[in-house]
């Protein structure tokens, strides 16, 4: 089993899942990530485990493992296991205690969702263990094609449109990846998926960076995240949040370590989404913006490029899958049980969903980087690396963004859904499998934060870093505590903006509104000119026909048939004329 790439088990498993129902299917979806994960942990060592000759001079490498890919491999198995555990109730019929008016879970498409998620997880594993760009491209596209069904499974008109936008954006990213890879292969003669960088790689390096950047949610290309995540099913979003963006972070860590431009792109990503997150009403969209913010820290870490920074980036990716997954799970539980995820509709749910509320608070504390929680030991590596490399302004932005994380994910998400004003909704706790998945996620958030040294041994680079010292704990608690005091002051003074039933336009307006408007208005003008030119030409042709028909038509003088008598008369006249002339 060790020589087989990890995706194979998931792809074969997906076929088996497609043909089973009930208990056998439940066992399968849990057993596949569990067995695959154990195999990876115990049996797979770093090295190239599978390679073929391809088109003569190139080598395809579907299975290459090193510490970086293994870390993401463990993570994706874990994420798949938690995701399937969370989605285990799908297909069991109505959820007990739900007050949702229509089923947001896509429960009637449980088989489709499970197969799609299994293929999606397999594609993510295929991508991180790919040793060449062609294999990476195949899985890059498969990530999009397999996961779009998790959005469509929601079954709403809006989710269909979102799914198509999602698919188009990711296919464009794949095409760019292939273009960049082919250019690199042409120049270097190798398709190996390794360091590319921007220096010396010319246009190919930039094209590849944009391809990775689209999937990572770089500014202006970030809206697929905030578009797709809120429109997917409650369980589908948990899978979506785990794989695609993290594959992109992995690809950046593989090919663009130490590129300065990433520091600034990453910092921008930590900064701008937090303003949208303050304003946004849909709490799963808030988490979408939060996702971009967190990826910003990772991208900046990769850009800083030191061992500590890169370790920080990948460690934070690992922690993010778990705490963001936990937050998406808690909001998914709210959506499943109430049919709502908007701040304006929710509030007071702690009275009937105390366990979900508690687990959500754990996720909120983890993402906010409270001491003893995961982000405290992961994000701080990136922040310290920024100081070590003298990126002082970048550090100030990141510190501001850290306070922003506390605002939107640490306080807003749990506060507006479970506390705040009582909405009167009396939904029960979600199914036990959902609670169990959330509980495991919560325990992992605490374990990583409490025992970081064990976790650090999995990281790809050698480093010497101790997250727990008195000053770090003290200043972090000060930042968080006084940030929260700022929130209390904002609420008490009425300055904090109310949640509003509205959307706030973002870069997506370019392709969702301006683009169609341009097509309509330019197209309309072209159509009007076309109509005018056609009409003018037709009018001209008609007038020519009219004149010709007047002269040559049935009654036209040039087409009239003359009587024989007049012909004889004219011949006689000509002859007389001729005679007179002759005489």
């Amino acid at each position, binding site marked *: 089993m060790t020589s087989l790439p990890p995706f194979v088990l998931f792809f074969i498993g997906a076929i088996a899942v497609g043909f089973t129902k009930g208990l056998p299917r439940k066992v399968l979806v849990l057993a596949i990530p569990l067995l695959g994960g154990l195999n990876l942990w115990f049996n797979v060592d770093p090295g190239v485990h599978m390679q073929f000759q391809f088109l003569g001079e190139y080598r395809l490498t579907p299975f290459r493992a090193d510490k970086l890919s293994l870390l993401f491999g463990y993570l994706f198995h874990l994420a798949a296991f938690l995701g399937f555990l969370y989605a285990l109730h799908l297909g069991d019929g109505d959820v007990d205690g739900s007050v949702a008016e229509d089923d947001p879970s896509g429960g009637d498409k449980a088989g489709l969702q499970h197969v799609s998620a299994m293929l999606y997880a397999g594609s993510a594993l295929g991508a991180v263990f790919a040793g060449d760009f062609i294999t990476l491209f195949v899985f890059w596209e498969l990530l999009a094609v397999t996961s779009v069904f998790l959005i469509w499974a929601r079954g709403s008109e*809006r989710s269909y449109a979102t799914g198509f936008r999602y698919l188009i954006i990711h296919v464009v990213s794949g095409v760019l990846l292939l273009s960049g890879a082919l250019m690199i292969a042409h120049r270097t003669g190798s398709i190996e998926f390794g360091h590319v960088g921007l220096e010396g790689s010319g246009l190919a390096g930039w094209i590849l960076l944009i391809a990775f950047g689209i999937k990572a949610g770089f500014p202006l290309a970030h809206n697929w995240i905030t578009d797709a995540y809120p429109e997917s099913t409650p369980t589908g979003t948990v899978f979506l949040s785990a794989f695609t963006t993290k594959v992109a972070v992995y690809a950046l860590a593989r090919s663009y370590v130490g590129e300065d431009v990433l520091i600034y792109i990453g910092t921008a990503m930590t900064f701008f989404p937090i303003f949208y997150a303050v304003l946004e009403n849909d709490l799963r969209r808030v988490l979408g913006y939060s996702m971009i913010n967190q990826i910003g820290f990772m991208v900046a870490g990769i850009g800083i490029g030191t061992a500590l920074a890169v370790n920080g980036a990948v460690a934070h990716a690992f922690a993010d899958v778990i705490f963001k997954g936990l937050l998406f799970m808690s909001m998914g539980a709210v959506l499943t049980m109430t049919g709502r995820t908007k701040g304006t509709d929710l509030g007071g749910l702690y009275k009937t969903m105390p366990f979900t509320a508690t687990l959500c608070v754990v996720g909120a504390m983890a993402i906010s980087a409270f001491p003893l929680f995961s982000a405290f030991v992961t994000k701080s590596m990136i922040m*310290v690396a920024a100081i070590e490399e003298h990126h002082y302004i970048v550090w100030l932005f990141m510190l501001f963004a850290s306070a922003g994380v506390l605002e939107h994910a640490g306080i807003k998400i749990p506060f507006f859904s479970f506390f705040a004003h009582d909405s009167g909704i*009396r939904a029960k706790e979600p199914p036990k499998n959902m609670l169990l998945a959330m509980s495991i996620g919560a325990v992992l958030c605490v374990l990583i934060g409490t025992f970081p040294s064990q976790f650090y041994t999995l990281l790809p680079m050698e480093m010497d870093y101790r997250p727990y010292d008195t000053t770090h704990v*003290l200043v972090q608690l*000060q930042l968080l505590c006084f940030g929260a005091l700022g929130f209390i002051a*904002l609420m008490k003074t009425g300055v904090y903006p109310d949640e509003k039933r509205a959307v706030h336009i973002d870069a997506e307006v370019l392709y969702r509104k301006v683009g169609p408007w341009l097509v309509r208005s330019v197209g309309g003008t072209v159509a009007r000119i076309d109509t005018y030119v056609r009409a003018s030409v037709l009018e001209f042709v008609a007038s020519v026909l009219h004149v010709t028909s007047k002269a040559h038509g049935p009654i036209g003088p040039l087409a009239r048939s003359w009587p024989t008598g007049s012909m004889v008369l004219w011949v006689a006249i000509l002859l007389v004329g001729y005679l007179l002339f002759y005489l």
Partner: protein
Amino acid sequence: MRHEPKQPIGWMDKPKFVKRLFQVFYVLAGLLVLAEIVLGRTTEHPHPYEGPFGFYAVYGFASFWFLVLLAKPMRKLLIRSEDYYEGGQDDD
């Protein structure tokens, strides 16, 4: 079982509890400032701008206000109706 007529009273519904919660918070904030006076800051990686006493406390508090005070005018500029992308409020 939607919107049961009898509403349970939660601990957040009791103003006294909320007031006490805030008080605990204020005390905690005070203790954290006190801790900085007593323990000082001795970090392996000092930042040149973090020098002044209470920097992190002020930065945390100010960040929240800056965030919200900038987000509010942003909202005025960016807000649209919920169905904006489905054809509503086309002219905005």
